């Protein structure tokens, strides 16, 4: 009987943890790039500029070419968050480029896995996928919310403590945070943008200890903290 009660408690704890952890919020995305892209970060302005075909290289000289999803929550979220255009408006925009000779029709792929595969094997390819999609063979770019002039390098990184219970129960995922870095380099504020809420506490605690290179003004960036129970 005691054994049965203990098992029941464990089951309840597991259920609460799993329900609480949830999945990443619908529309949470990450920006991925082919490893040939040298940059680890990209500003919102640069990202917009790349996907609107105003540039085909980043400020470090890396060749880039945009890859789009055919549809879905990640696509909708990307357009809304970074391009401020509906899918209809974006298609019209690309067609205008194509038929006035000022741009090309970018690659459009039907699924996240197809995008990851294409980005992994295509030099300069840059795309976006759901935050929980495995990013094998590609690099995940950190989005700088402010201009590229404010690029900051991470000099001290503290890894988050993975809660033992959650790790044992195979609860993983990615926490997406927006952090503001002071001119001196310390992390002044942290805001949860998405991902597994139950892992957020550990992520926030770690990120608050990070230190960046000094800059002329406060910088706001987006970071993603992965929690992989298999590691």
């Amino acid at each position, binding site marked *: 009987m005691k054994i049965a009660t203990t098992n029941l408690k464990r089951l309840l704890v597991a259920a609460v943890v799993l329900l609480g952890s949830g999945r990443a919020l619908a529309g949470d995305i990450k920006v991925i790039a082919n490893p040939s892209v040298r940059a680890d970060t990209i500003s919102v302005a640069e990202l917009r500029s790349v996907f609107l075909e*105003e*540039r085909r290289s980043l400020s470090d000289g890396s060749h880039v070419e945009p890859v789009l999803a055919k549809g879905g929550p990640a696509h909708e979220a990307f357009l809304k968050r970074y391009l401020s255009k*509906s899918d209809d*408006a974006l298609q019209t925009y690309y067609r205008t480029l194509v*038929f006035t*000779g000022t741009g090309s*029709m970018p690659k*459009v792929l039907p699924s996240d896995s197809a995008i990851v595969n294409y980005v992994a094997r295509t030099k300069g390819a840059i795309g976006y996928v759901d935050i929980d999609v495995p990013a094998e063979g590609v690099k995940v770019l950190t989005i700088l919310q402010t*201009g590229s002039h404010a690029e900051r390098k991470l000099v001290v990184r503290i890894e988050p403590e993975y809660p033992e219970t959650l790790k044992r129960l195979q609860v993983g995922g990615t926490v997406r945070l927006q952090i503001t870095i002071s001119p001196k380099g310390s992390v002044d504020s942290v805001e949860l943008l998405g991902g597994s809420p139950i892992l957020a506490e550990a992520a926030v605690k770690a990120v608050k200890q990070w230190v960046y290179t000094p800059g002329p003004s406060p910088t706001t960036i987006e970071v993603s903290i992965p929690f992989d129970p298999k590691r």
Partner: protein
Amino acid sequence: MHRQIVKVALFCLCVGQTALQAQEFKLFDRTIQFHGFASQGFIYTNDNNWLTMHTSQGSGAFTDFGANVSMQITDKFRIGAQVYDRNLGNLGEWHPSLDWAFADYRFKPWFGIRGGKVKTVLGLYNDTQDLDFLRPFALLPQSVYPTDIRDASIAHLGGDIYGSVSLRRRLGTISYTAYAGHRSDSLYSGYTYLASEFGVHFSSYGGLQYGGDLRWNTPVKGLLIGASRIDQDVAGKGTFINPLNPGAGFAPYSDKPETDWTNQYYGEYIVGKLRIDSEYRRFLHAQVVNGGILETTTDVRGWYVSGAYRVAKRLALGSYYSRYSITHVAGGPLAPLFPDQTDTSLPANHVYDKVLTARVDLNRFWNVKLEGHFMNGYGSSIFPDGFYPQVKPTGFQTQHECAGSQDEFQLLEGGTNA
């Protein structure tokens, strides 16, 4: 004159899709893309003939198509060209033209150059006025974008500088274009067709043009405002029958401008599925014919407000109100043949157009549009604004309606069929 009820039989004429196929392939590790489009329209009007067609009997002489090829050679350098052909009543007459063909080097997002035959940026839609599939309307507001002089305004042979700059403190983005080049009108356009009414037959029509465009994507999400300006030095040569001496037969004809400029101001607001546009254009043109036997000054003003809403994935509805007016004064020995027109309340000096349209997207590449125009006035006989005495010798009616359908498709690459 009371309005007549329009009884319209609408036909949707389809163009064979197999004729065009969007493609891309690699050459020396560079991607070459091919794209094409085509459209077919049918127009019926209840009174006046419109756009050089016999629309009062219904006309399907409303076809255009184009195809282009382009290649991104380096991250900063691209080349491409597009051919275009159309038959709009008596205009175009199936004579293909090089729509654009240029080399483009973009040094930075804020600075690039283009050279060759380049589309002319003027207002929201001048450079895309022939690409009907980009918008809900079959015809852009004719007060600002008269389709019968499309070839006169759409491109120049010369060069552009262009770029866009993101402003600090989230103040939006400024984009600019400045250009100079040579404009060369087709001999199958509205100007030359209209001039034939007066016995003038052009052998050439064109000249220098230069101008610029400045547009601001404001911090207000979806709001864009801008202004454009173009100056021209356009002259025509040909032959004509001098009304003062018709017995002499054809005599040399020439005209040259004293003033020729266009100013255009515009705004665009997109929120969700709603798009609202408004533009104002003023065109002032003064010219001297054959050294002074006729001097004319034409002042054309037009504006419109349009709205379009995508009510469903495959259906968009739109409407606009377009207002066009023209004044004209003449001097010189031939002036009595061209009485001054200064009262824009007269139907001969304006066109007020109320438009309703529905666009159905059958799939990603095919769409059908149904559009109705309810017009007051028929413009001037000395400027190509849609109405030509040649196709309505019995005279124009003040109130008139037009209904049209357009079925078009365009093929694009960029999907999964790489």
